[in-house]
């Protein structure tokens, strides 16, 4: 049985060299994807796996699929992944502690079992007959051969897949669409609100952040004449996130001058 399996698809030496150089790299990158903490690093390793797979496709006479793999996966899909990573937060790394106790040993045991099963299955399979190779099928060219199949035998699945693509694009648009809860006020409305409101305290605009001559960052509230910090000089988002420094330490009387000039 095993002898038959080995006789299937003898390849030339250059391809063997290519395989034995790239396959360990691919497996290492895939394992690294599993083990690294940061999602961005996973994405980079994923891209390298995709490129290696594209090289394998081209080495196996699947020129069209190799090119499509690079264009679709390393181009579009990885771009999408990185884009979403930027949106969700680049530094969103996993905490590697397990929440379900014993999950990791179980997963690794199951993987070893499954992998072993697959490997032994492949090694025992006779895979039918001797490898034929794609020389005859690709006699008109790989792209032409695929096109002939795609537009004759697979024309109905092809149409269905195009419907699927349109549905997916629509679905993504619906999911990502953000309905604003309130109508955004116009500049004119804002101006009317400032002058016709309850008080004229903010008629000239909100105070700017920072303590005069000491610290002018946007996260330090301005000091009012009586020494209290003016909370409305800080952006509401910064306040909600709690990214607000106490301005009291920057007051003239309270700064520690014994250390000399501030750097």
């Amino acid at each position, binding site marked *: 049985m095993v002898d038959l*399996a*080995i*006789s*299937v*698809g*003898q*390849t030339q030496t250059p391809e063997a060299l290519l395989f*034995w150089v790239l*396959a360990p790299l691919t*497996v290492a990158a*895939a*394992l690294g*994807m*599993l083990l690294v903490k940061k*999602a961005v690093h996973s994405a980079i390793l*994923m891209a390298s796996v995709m490129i290696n*797979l594209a090289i*394998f496709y081209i080495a*196996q006479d*699947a020129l*069209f*699929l190799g090119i*499509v*793999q690079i264009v679709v*996966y390393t181009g579009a*899909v990885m771009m*999408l*992944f990185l884009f*979403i*990573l930027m*949106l*969700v937060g680049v530094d969103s790394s*996993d905490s590697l502690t397990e*929440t379900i106790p014993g*999950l990791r040993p179980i*997963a690794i045991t199951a*993987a070893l079992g*499954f*992998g072993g099963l*697959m*490997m032994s299955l*492949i090694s025992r399979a006779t*895979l039918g007959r001797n*490898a034929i190779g*794609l020389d*005859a*099928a690709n006699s008109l060219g*790989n792209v032409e*051969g*695929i096109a002939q*199949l795609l537009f004759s035998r697979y024309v109905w699945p092809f149409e269905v897949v195009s419907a*699927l*693509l349109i549905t*997916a*694009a629509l*679905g*993504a648009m619906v*999911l*990502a669409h*953000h309905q604003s809860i309130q109508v955004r006020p116009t500049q004119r409305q804002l101006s009317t609100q400032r002058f016709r409101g309850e008080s004229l305290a903010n008629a000239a605009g909100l105070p700017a952040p920072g303590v005069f001559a000491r610290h002018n960052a946007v996260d330090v509230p301005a000091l009012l004449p009586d020494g209290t910090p003016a909370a409305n000089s800080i952006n509401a988002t910064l306040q909600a996130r709690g990214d607000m420094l106490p301005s009291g330490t920057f007051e003239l009387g309270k700064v520690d001058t014994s250390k000399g000039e501030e750097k």
Partner: protein
Amino acid sequence: MDAANYLYLSALLFTIGAVGVVVRRNAIVVFMCVELMLNAANLAFVTFSRINGDLNGQVVAFFTMVVAACEVVVGLAIIVTIYRSRRSASVDDASLLKR
């Protein structure tokens, strides 16, 4: 070297992807592992296509790529929607049905 080596590689990559789906908790990384599994299946399709001297396998791999692209688009949109309402991309945080 024989073409079955590609099948071994494909099985290995599929297993690694499956472990990733179970073990990792960041939804985006889980998604990348699903992509890895789909790609491993594609490699097997291409290899079988070569062993059988028939382009049907490559056409199926092509369809798999299209479906994978759809899956990524919709899946990432779902992740963004969940992130928007829960401020987290961890798959363990979306457990409202438990309580």
